[in-house]
């Protein structure tokens, strides 16, 4: 099994788990956890798009013997993922705060019992 396939399968698995969790779980913190799982899956998917089998990390040091353009993987998705991870942390922090404050306001963290917005 190639590394590329492992990356793709694990990203799809995480994305699937996260989406199911967001839709089916009832506790707000579990939904927040599922959200972070899904965003990890998306990050791995982005890294996979820049992966080229048999190439090295995009750091041009003495271990790169050929011309760099045929020796390293794509640095652009990795740079994108670097920022995406940090944004993910900040967004999940905000999500957890909203979840905590909502559950305190309504006296429950169970989404089935939050009926204020239902018509």
């Amino acid at each position, binding site marked *: 099994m190639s590394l*590329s396939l492992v990356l*793709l399968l694990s990203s*799809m698995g995480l*994305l*699937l788990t996260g*989406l*199911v969790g967001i*839709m*089916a779980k009832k506790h707000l913190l579990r939904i927040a956890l599922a959200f972070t799982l899904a965003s990890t899956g998306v990050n791995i*998917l982005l890294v*996979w*798009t*820049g*992966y*080229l089998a048999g190439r090295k*990390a*995009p*750091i*041009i*040091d003495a271990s790169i013997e050929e*011309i*760099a*353009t*045929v020796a*390293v993987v*794509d*640095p*652009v998705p*990795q*740079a994108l993922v*670097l*920022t995406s*991870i*940090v*944004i993910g*942390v*900040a*967004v999940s*922090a*905000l999500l957890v*705060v*909203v979840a*905590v*404050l909502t559950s*305190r306001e309504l006296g429950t963290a169970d989404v089935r019992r939050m009926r204020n917005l239902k018509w």
Partner: protein
Amino acid sequence: MRTFIAFLLALYLVFFAAAAFESFGEPQGLGRIAEHYAAEGFEEVGAINLVTAVVVTYRGLDTLGEVSVLFTAASAVILLLSVFPLGKPANKPSSIVLLTMKVLPGPILLFGGYIIAHGHLTPGGGFPGGAVVASAALLVLLGCTQEVGFAKWLTFAESMAGFSFAMLGFWGLLKLGQFLNNSVLFLGIPGQLLSAGIIPLISAAIGVKVASELSGILVAYRCGGGKE
């Protein structure tokens, strides 16, 4: 039943995502932009770590925007928690936490500083290094019983870091007519610690900013000033 329906729905979405990515086919080489970065990046910006070169200089403007997104999220958290404070931590920290919070923050800060300073040489840079530094703040906050002293410096550090990132960009604009131009400082010998123009400086600014924002979020959760 509900989980099963959710699973089918999610499988449907993921299947289409997989099919879309499959239609790209296996990538055969670098794209045109990535090829330019790989071929010229070493000469142009003097950084051996191409990821940092892309994050900090080539797409530095995006990083500036991304840092503002982080700032917005952090201020939303801090605003919400200062209006609706969570109150004092209920449980007392254990003796293990109390001991490690006296011993470990120093080494953690040193390691975070090392990651930030070597961003243009090894995998790392401002974002991961800042997160490592914030983990030292997390350790201190786990063991705190009252308001921590460094909380009031976080806003100051955060705004100074953001300001200096923007100013380093304008330095390039004034001197060479290009925002965030990396050649305003000497490029040095690639691979050395003092090289790669303004990349180490911007890495340091991003590191301070990320560290103070993440610690600001953590302080808002626990042991912040706030209105009790």
